[in-house]
Each structure stands twice: as structure tokens, then as C-alpha cells.
């Protein structure tokens, strides 16, 4: 297992800040999500930016786990419409050039039939793709069939969210069926939130991954945008408390002081 950071932990952070945060926390990998402050997009006219980003990431001693397609944007991917079109071919070629320049796979959510068609279309176009499974992929027979050995052979990622599924049930089944095709896991609620995540099965999950010899990447990400302040502090992006700015947004959470507010009640 190689532990890393998702840009979801600091959506406004440029690449330099993400790399500095990795160095600060000894994190070995980085997951970049579309639309975040790193500014990388498959549709960029020049490939200089992804090439430069790849060089900077490598120079920082970090590996890029993948470029994650934002939820809801898979409709723009090739293959999302029934039947191949010329536009699809152009989109696929753009993605292929981008992924090559960045030197990382595309992480494509597999939430519905459109997403799955898009992931497979990108793969057919030569783009390295990891299909992202939701927390319980076995709840949907179409997804479960993608996990089974000998299905489409699509390399997989997994959003291991213990808040919405029982990781103790899903993890052993997924590790057994997906085997080495499972390459990347995002754990919402890791990092600075972990102190408040007792009982969600992350410890048992980590033990299972270790015993299974899971050699892929694990990206830490917030479970909610409400935790932005504690993540910023953990990543060294703000100097702590007392400057007056953090307290202005009362929807934000300080885990250390246990002052989570719900419905306006402290």
C-alpha cells in the first residue's frame, strides 16, 4: 500500500501546495481530480502543462496515482452516447494525449451505464483507465459483473467510504474477486478526520489490504467540504487557529475542539 493525498483535500490548492503537503506528511502518491486548483484539464490546447506537472511531481518524489474525472462530467467523455461518433474519436484522442503527457491513468467513476460506456470507450482508445467502483459495488449486478475475474478486465479503483457501507463486508469480497486489478483506493475521512472515525472499519480494512499484499495506492480525502479547515491545517496550508478568519464560517468543523455544528446547534 502506498498512501497518498487527493486534491479533494485542498480543491483550491495549486500543484506546488499539494506537493508541499505530501512532503510535510510523508505521502507518496497524489490523486488529481478534474476541476481543482492544479488547473490540469484534458481539453488544454497545449500539452506543456501536463508534461510540466508530471516532471514536477516526479522531482518531488511523488507518484501520480491518476487523474480523476469529476462526477457528472462523464457525459462529456467519448462513448457516453449510444453509437460511436466522430466527436467521440476526437475526444478519445485528446484524452489519450493528455494521459500520455501526464503519465497517469484516468480515474473514471462507474456509477451508471453512461459512465461505464465512457470508461470502456476510453480504454478501447488506448487511454489507461481505472474504473472507480462506488462503496458497495455488489449492490448493482452490472458493477458486480465488472469486478468478477474475466469480465471486461478493466483495472479498478474503489471509493472505500465506511460511512455508507460496511467495509468489513465489501473489502474481503472485492479483494478476492478483483485481485491485482484493484489498483487505487480513495478513503474519505482519512487524514486529520481519522481521529473522529472510530468504528468505520478503516483499521480492519488496512489490515486486510496489508495481508492481501495490496500494492496499489490509497488516497486520503475529506468526507465532506465542512472539514476544509482541519484539512488545511493538517496539510500546513494555514497556521492554525486564532487569526479570526477560520471562525467566520460556522459550518466548518474543528475536530480538535469537537465543535461540529449541526442545524446551528454547537
Amino acid at each position, binding site marked *: *500500500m*502506498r*498512501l497518498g493525498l487527493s486534491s479533494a483535500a485542498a480543491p483550491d490548492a495549486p500543484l506546488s501546495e499539494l506537493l508541499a503537503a505530501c*512532503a*510535510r*506528511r*510523508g505521502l507518496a502518491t497524489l490523486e488529481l481530480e478534474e476541476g481543482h486548483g492544479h488547473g490540469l484539464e484534458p481539453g488544454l490546447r497545449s500539452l506543456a502543462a501536463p508534461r510540466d506537472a508530471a516532471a514536477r511531481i516526479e522531482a518531488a518524489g511523488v507518484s501520480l*496515482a491518476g487523474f480523476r474525472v469529476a462526477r457528472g462530467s462523464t457525459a462529456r467523455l467519448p462513448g457516453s452516447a449510444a453509437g460511436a461518433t466522430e466527436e467521440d474519436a476526437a475526444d478519445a484522442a485528446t484524452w489519450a494525449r493528455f*494521459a*500520455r503527457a501526464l*503519465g*497517469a*491513468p484516468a480515474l473514471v467513476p462507474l456509477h451508471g451505464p453512461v459512465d461505464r460506456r465512457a470508461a470502456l470507450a476510453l480504454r478501447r482508445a488506448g487511454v*489507461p483507465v481505472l474504473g472507480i467502483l462506488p462503496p458497495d459495488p455488489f449492490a448493482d449486478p452490472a458493477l458486480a459483473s465488472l469486478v468478477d475475474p474475466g469480465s471486461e478486465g478493466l*483495472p479498478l479503483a474503489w471509493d472505500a467510504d465506511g460511512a455508507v457501507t460496511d467495509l468489513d463486508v465489501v473489502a474481503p469480497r472485492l479483494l478476492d474477486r478483483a*485481485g*491485482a486489478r484493484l*489498483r*487505487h483506493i480513495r*478513503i474519505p475521512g*482519512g*487524514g486529520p478526520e*481519522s*481521529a*473522529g*472515525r*472510530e*468504528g*468505520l472499519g*478503516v*483499521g*480492519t480494512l*488496512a*489490515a486486510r*489490504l*496489508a*495481508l*492481501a*499484499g*495490496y*500494492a*496499489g*495506492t*490509497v488516497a*486520503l480525502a475529506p468526507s465532506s467540504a465542512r472539514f476544509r479547515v482541519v484539512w488545511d491545517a493538517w496539510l500546513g496550508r494555514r497556521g492554525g487557529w486564532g487569526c479570526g478568519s477560520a471562525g467566520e464560517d460556522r459550518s466548518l468543523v474543528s475536530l480538535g475542539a469537537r465543535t461540529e455544528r449541526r442545524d446551528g446547534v454547537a
Partner: protein
Amino acid sequence: MEEPKADRRTQRVLDVRVIPPREKHPAIFETFAALGPGESFVLVNDHDPKPLRYQFEAEHTGEYGWRYLESGPVVWRVELSRRAG
């Protein structure tokens, strides 16, 4: 371009930085309990796991091996093994 397919039989890494504090030691001992004689895993932590070593010494005297692979200042890596025989 894709992640290389690692040999899943040779790499066992338990990174406890991702684990809630109360679950850390149970996860470590659970992993150790599953090791066969001569097998090992690499424990990764964000501080020196000395208290854990004391606990191993108390509960698994003579059964375990402990070798530092990296000693901070940001990350500590310890190879924990189950002694053969």
C-alpha cells in the same frame, strides 16, 4: 503509464496513518496474528511506535522481529516479523 503490476505476494505494508487511533493497535496485532513463521510486514507510522514495541515485548516475547527501515522525522517504517520456530 499504468501502475506496474506489483508482486502481491512480496509486499505487505500496513500504513496506520490512515487508521483512527483506537483502531490502530488492533489492526496491527490482527495483521501480526495472520503471519506465518518467517513472514513479515512493514508498519508505517507518523511517529516512532515505541509504545507498540513495548506492547509486543510484553505480549509476544521472543515471537517477533522488529527492524527499523526508516526513522522519521516524518515517517517511520518498521519491519515486523514473526520469528520462525
